[in-house]
């Protein structure tokens, strides 16, 4: 055979994945480690030296599912540093943009990632074959969420229209009115989603969570509020690092957060709902009541219902905002022309939970230090606790069944390694 060798120097892109290592001795779980191998991306390091104006667009690239969360936390942190406040319609439009992200992210998780777990399918493709209507509903909801992001953000993924102080361009009344019919349809789909989710079968498990979320005096929290917990935390967001800290587990590339002196805690829909259910809008509250959803949900599997209620909330809020919309005179509040060295911090509620940003700026408005604490790293330790309890109670399962159960327990919290955890590698060592 005639052969020749062609020399190539091509690098394949490397992506992350998660793995769970469990060491069991007899009937005791001795060790459990959720490893996240997502390669470190050094965003905090390469933000240094960049202008404060660039942070919303740079950090948005951290996530394709929740870029708005990164933009919102970055903008609010910068505005805190610069001593600015964004009020009125601009503040409301930010909420509307965030609603779009909540709708698309929650719909994706409920129908494409979580539902297959409850209905006994390995993935959404197999689910779609036998329950095409369910998957269609999910995709339609996701699309409507994406449309909102498109109108306000300029595009669906990694929007480009957000800036410190507001937006580059604000929509006209007609542009927003044009998506109203789709949102009306989304309201029906969202309510059906809650009914669908509440009809699923759930394992009878309750966890003793410390729930942590924002809480706002007048509204279900998104961009503003205090940090509160069901165990007495009540602090301004700028004091987040006094109470919570990130630690590095040697087995994982993701940092883990703990409540100092207290341990793991949970952020995300279960926490937001437990601490803010009284702030839901009427239809969201009514559907929660209709399906008998308790005010505090401690069963992590039932988070699928809470996500559904939050979609109703986001759609209801979007309709309310669109109906009352009057375009602001200017698309943004002008940041100050001169700076002094300052630090700003902010938390907003990403679909998966609180997202903390802190920036230190110099007198030229250049970033000297950046700190970003994502919801998945805050939940990572708590997810380990959930899985540890599950494994302890399920030692009689064979390794395949145990792996499956662990994957589901992890997916309850919609970690931002969701796609990777579908390929969770479980390493069980039994002695």
């Amino acid at each position, binding site marked *: 055979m005639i052969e020749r060798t062609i020399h*190539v120097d091509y690098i394949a892109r*490397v992506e992350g994945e998660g793995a769970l290592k469990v060491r069991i001795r007899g009937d005791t779980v001795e060790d459990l480690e959720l490893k996240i191998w997502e390669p470190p991306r050094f965003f905090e390091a390469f933000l240094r030296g960049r202008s404060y104006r660039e942070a919303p667009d740079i950090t948005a690239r951290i996530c394709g599912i929740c870029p708005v969360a990164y933009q919102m936390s970055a903008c609010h942190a910068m505005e805190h540093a610069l001593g600015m406040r964004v009020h009125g319609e601009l503040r409301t439009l930010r909420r509307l943009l965030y609603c779009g992200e909540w709708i698309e992210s929650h719909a994706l998780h409920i129908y494409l990632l979580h539902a297959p777990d409850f209905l006994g399918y390995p993935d959404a493709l197999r689910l779609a074959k036998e329950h095409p209507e369910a998957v269609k509903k999910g995709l339609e909801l996701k699309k409507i969420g994406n449309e909102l992001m498109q109108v306000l953000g300029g595009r669906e993924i990694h929007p480009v229209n957000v800036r410190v102080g507001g937006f580059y361009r604000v929509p006209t009344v007609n542009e927003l009115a044009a998506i109203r019919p789709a949102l009306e349809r989304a309201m029906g789909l969202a309510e059906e989603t809650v009914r669908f989710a509440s009809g699923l079968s759930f394992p009878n498990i309750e966890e003793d969570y410390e729930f942590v979320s924002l809480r706002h005096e007048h509204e279900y929290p998104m961009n503003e509020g205090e940090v509160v917990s069901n165990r007495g935390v009540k602090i301004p967001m700028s004091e987040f690092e006094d109470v919570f800290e990130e630690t590095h587990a040697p087995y994982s590339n993701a940092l883990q957060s703990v409540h100092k002196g207290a341990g793991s805690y949970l952020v995300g829909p279960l926490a937001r709902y437990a601490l803010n259910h009284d702030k839901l809008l009427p239809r969201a509250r009514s559907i929660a009541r209709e399906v008998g959803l308790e005010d505090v949900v401690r069963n992590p599997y039932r988070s699928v219902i809470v996500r559904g209620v939050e979609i109703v909330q986001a759609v209801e809020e979007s309709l309310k905002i669109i109906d009352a919309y009057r375009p602001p005179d200017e698309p943004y509040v002008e940041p100050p022309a001169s700076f002094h060295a300052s630090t700003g911090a902010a938390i907003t509620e990403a679909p998966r939970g609180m997202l903390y940003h802190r920036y230190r700026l110099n007198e030229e408005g250049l970033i000297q230090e950046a700190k970003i604490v994502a919801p998945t790293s805050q939940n990572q330790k708590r997810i380990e606790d959930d899985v540890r309890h599950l494994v302890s109670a399920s030692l009689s399962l064979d390794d395949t069944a145990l792996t499956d159960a662990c994957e589901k327990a992890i997916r309850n919290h919609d970690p931002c390694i969701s796609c990777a955890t579908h390929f969770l590698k479980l390493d069980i060592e039994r002695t």
Partner: protein
Amino acid sequence: MHEEAMVRDLVRKIEEVARREGSPRVTRVRLWVGALSHLTAGGLRDRWSLATERTPAEGSALDLTVSTDPNHPRSTEIVLESVDLAAPGGTV
């Protein structure tokens, strides 16, 4: 999922090389796997046969050099070093 995408990306590149060289078949592929690349030799091999099915690289030998040096400048990467091709019109 990500590994799958990565291996398919490599196979696409290999197909492109074979097409450019006018070769009907790939006989051997050499990959260099960085110590911090988050991809194991086993994981790569598992996916290789599936990803190359019905491509010119189907049945090709896969040579892996797995680096253990985390300080290597390419330690987080997977490098496609070379591709052996059956010559156009050659006896296979």
